[in-house]
């Protein structure tokens, strides 16, 4: 009988750099099975999913529109995760920012955009940070697990949004659960006429640059990484781990809040319950795939934006359910995680 055993060894460098490519191929291989099962041609399906969106100007811009909240979310999550604070609450913090934007958008009407837009963005940041504060304090002061508290607060926030939209903000005209439209001067300007691409994309790109700069060039970034990579050793070296985590959590919540502003003031112009199809959670996947690295996060988010756009094209063209996009994303995550883990092992004949 042949016997095998598993040994732990480090992966060679060439393999490490090949991992994203291999993960991609493997993901497509697995999802192809599903597409064939759904009686469609996988090659054509992938054309619609990955190539078609980039083939016209309009849909290419739409990829950027879809990527905007994903980039911000990936950056928000990364800020927290790098410091060892597992913020699962970006979704709720996003809605906190959206509420702030919906409210500010209706009260700032008289001011010029040069004033209102910074106020909107700042307001969303503060709202998101405030919503992130209680679990962060509980974590730092009382060691209450933030994974649980931030996740629970997401549901609480959805109730608050629902209560607002069905109560004070319910549209008196249509009776729909949607807040009044924000003033034109508070809407984020379009970057390209006749498209949906708005200033939020610039903010998202800036957030990537800020993330990169903070992590690699500032003392606070080094403290965050130290706290996240080795809590006790960081403490030993004099890093105030609690304070570092708290600040990281607030920045993370703040950036998640900005997503809410970007979506309300850039896309919808009022608050509705469906502002986010789970951007806050997708951000966790993106941050993980991007290995908590600013550029990696940007690439992963753009890729997810592409798949989101492509999935719509695909389902229109071939009648494949739109969920294929999400299935591909989820498979991608599982495959990548498995490969990151398994690259350290070798199977050998015993």
């Amino acid at each position, binding site marked *: 009988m042949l016997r095998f*055993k598993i*040994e*732990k*060894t*480090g992966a060679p460098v060439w393999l490490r750099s090949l991992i994203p490519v291999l993960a991609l191929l493997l993901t497509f291989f697995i999802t192809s099975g599903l597409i064939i099962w759904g009686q469609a041609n996988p090659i054509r399906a992938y054309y619609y999913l990955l190539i078609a969106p980039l083939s016209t100007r309009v849909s290419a811009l739409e990829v950027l529109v879809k990527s905007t909240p994903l980039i911000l979310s990936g950056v928000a999550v990364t800020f927290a995760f790098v410091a060892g604070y597992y913020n699962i609450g970006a979704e709720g913090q996003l809605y906190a920012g959206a509420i702030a934007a919906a409210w500010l958008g209706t009260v700032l009407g008289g001011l010029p955009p040069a004033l209102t837009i910074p106020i909107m963005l700042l307001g969303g940041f503060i709202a998101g940070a405030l919503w992130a504060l209680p679990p962060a304090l509980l974590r730092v002061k009382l060691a209450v697990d933030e994974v649980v508290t931030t996740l629970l607060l997401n549901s609480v926030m959805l109730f608050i949004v629902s209560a607002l939209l069905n109560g004070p903000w319910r549209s008196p005209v249509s009776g729909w659960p949607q807040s009044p439209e924000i003033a034109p001067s508070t809407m984020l300007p379009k970057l390209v006429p006749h498209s949906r691409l708005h200033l939020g994309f610039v903010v998202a790109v800036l957030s990537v640059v800020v993330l990169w700069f903070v992590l690699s*060039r*500032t*003392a*606070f*970034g*080094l*403290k965050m*990484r*130290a706290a996240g*990579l*080795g809590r*006790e*050793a*960081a*403490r*030993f*070296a*004099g*890093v*105030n781990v609690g304070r570092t985590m708290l600040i990281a959590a607030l920045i993370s919540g703040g950036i998640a809040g900005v997503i809410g502003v970007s979506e309300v003031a850039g896309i919808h112009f009022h608050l509705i319950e469906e502002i986010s199809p789970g951007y806050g959670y997708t951000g966790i996947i993106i941050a993980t795939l991007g290995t908590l690295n600013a550029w990696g996060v940007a690439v992963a988010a753009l890729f997810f934006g592409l798949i989101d756009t492509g999935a719509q094209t695909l389902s229109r063209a071939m009648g494949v359910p739109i969920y294929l996009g999400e299935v591909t994303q989820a498979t991608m995550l599982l495959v990548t995680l498995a490969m990151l883990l398994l690259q350290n092992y070798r199977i050998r004949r*015993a």
Partner: protein
Amino acid sequence: MDIVQMRGITKRFGPVLANDHIDFSLREGEIHALLGENGAGKTTLMRILYGLYRADEGEILVRGWPARINSPKDAIALGIGMVTQHFALVPPLTVAENVVLGFTDGFALDRAAIERKVAEAAERFGLEVDPSAVVRHLSVGQRQRVEILKALYREAQVLILDEPTAVLVPQEIDALFKTLERLRAQGLSVIFITHKLEEVMRISDRVTVLRDGRVIGTVETQKTNERELARMMVGRETFGVHREERAVGEQPVLRVERICANDDQGLPALKEVSLVVHSGEVLGIAGVGGNGQKELAEVLTGMRRPTAGRVVVDGKDMTGATPAEFTAAGVGRIPEDRHAGVVSELTVAENMALEYLEEFTRRGVLDREAIWKHAEELIQRFQIKARPTDRARTLSGGNLQKLILARVLSRDPKVVIASQPTRGLDVGATEYVRQQLLEQRARGAAVLLISEDLDEILALSDRIAVMYEGEIVGMLPAQEADPERLGLMMSGAVKERQEAYAEV
């Protein structure tokens, strides 16, 4: 007649060649020492013999017959027993239960019967243990006897002991050696792993020296000496550390007054510990591990808050200060666990800067050039084999310790708290670290050396305090100390000058 023969044994762990075509033979009724520095491959070789690892190449003969040893079960069936560095006992069970565990004939456990059988066996092999005692309540030395009894009870004719003396006080070592001599007289063959020359000379009949996974030679103990063995083990002459006698300064720099602290479970770990370290002095804290040394070091480095008492550094009250405040007050800290002292995923340069980040920051932005220069400087000055951009985790134990030393000692600290500074290091790195500590002393620093290695304490200290169950049970000048006397205090048998604090 050779009871065990290992031929051409080779074992790789990834890129590491832990055993390189090793030939080893054990005669019937001999105590055979396996000598080598840390990482020489001793444990690996013996784990192969005991079936815990499989060799990549080579063969094993037991009593002249080729043997397939795929698991400890096979080894036990061939009469081979092993006591590993970390004991494999079940603490809540009794000695007798542990001994028979997995080796009972019937299904039902007749407690009285097994205790009787175990007592008989203990008597026969001359091992002093109480079969009905619960293992949790036993000392390390007693637990080791249970492990030996466990192997012998399984009718082992070959007994492998992996660094058995590392956890024992001198009196327990004496007892262990007496036991081994008696067992040898009964015909047992023993493989005794150690890196201590003096033990080899004392107990073994033959000795095989390993270095870098290879056999350097096998010699009769009678026909060799410590010098020769040291040369075989290290590949060069060892010099030991050079310690200048000099007057201890008058200045009390570190003063610990009636400190109490709890351990992680919230139980008292330090009970009114008081001590003073002067400038230009090494105060050694001896003791068996787990008697409060870890907590004392943590209190003095800002990692643990004391529940009572005071810590004064150079006249300044530092009780309950943060690690950063200790650093700022001139306390250099060498942690017990090297891996807890550096962030292993950060680079060497980042780790070197982490403690003094303000110096390398301008308006919040890192001065990367300064961090780089600082790292290169320290790497050169402390002869660290690493580049500034290497991740700390890729460094060997010795180089990691040098990184920590560099970070601490380059600041000319007033006080150095060194906790187990040479544990797990090879001879070369150990010498280096000890020499550095003595240089700090010569420079006028107050050095507090916490170590479980008595030789180290005796070699470096000006005064020696002994810790037992969270208390300082004795404090004496190094000239008056010897292993016997310290050993008695370490085992809690003698208390000398309880009010150690009053003496200063």
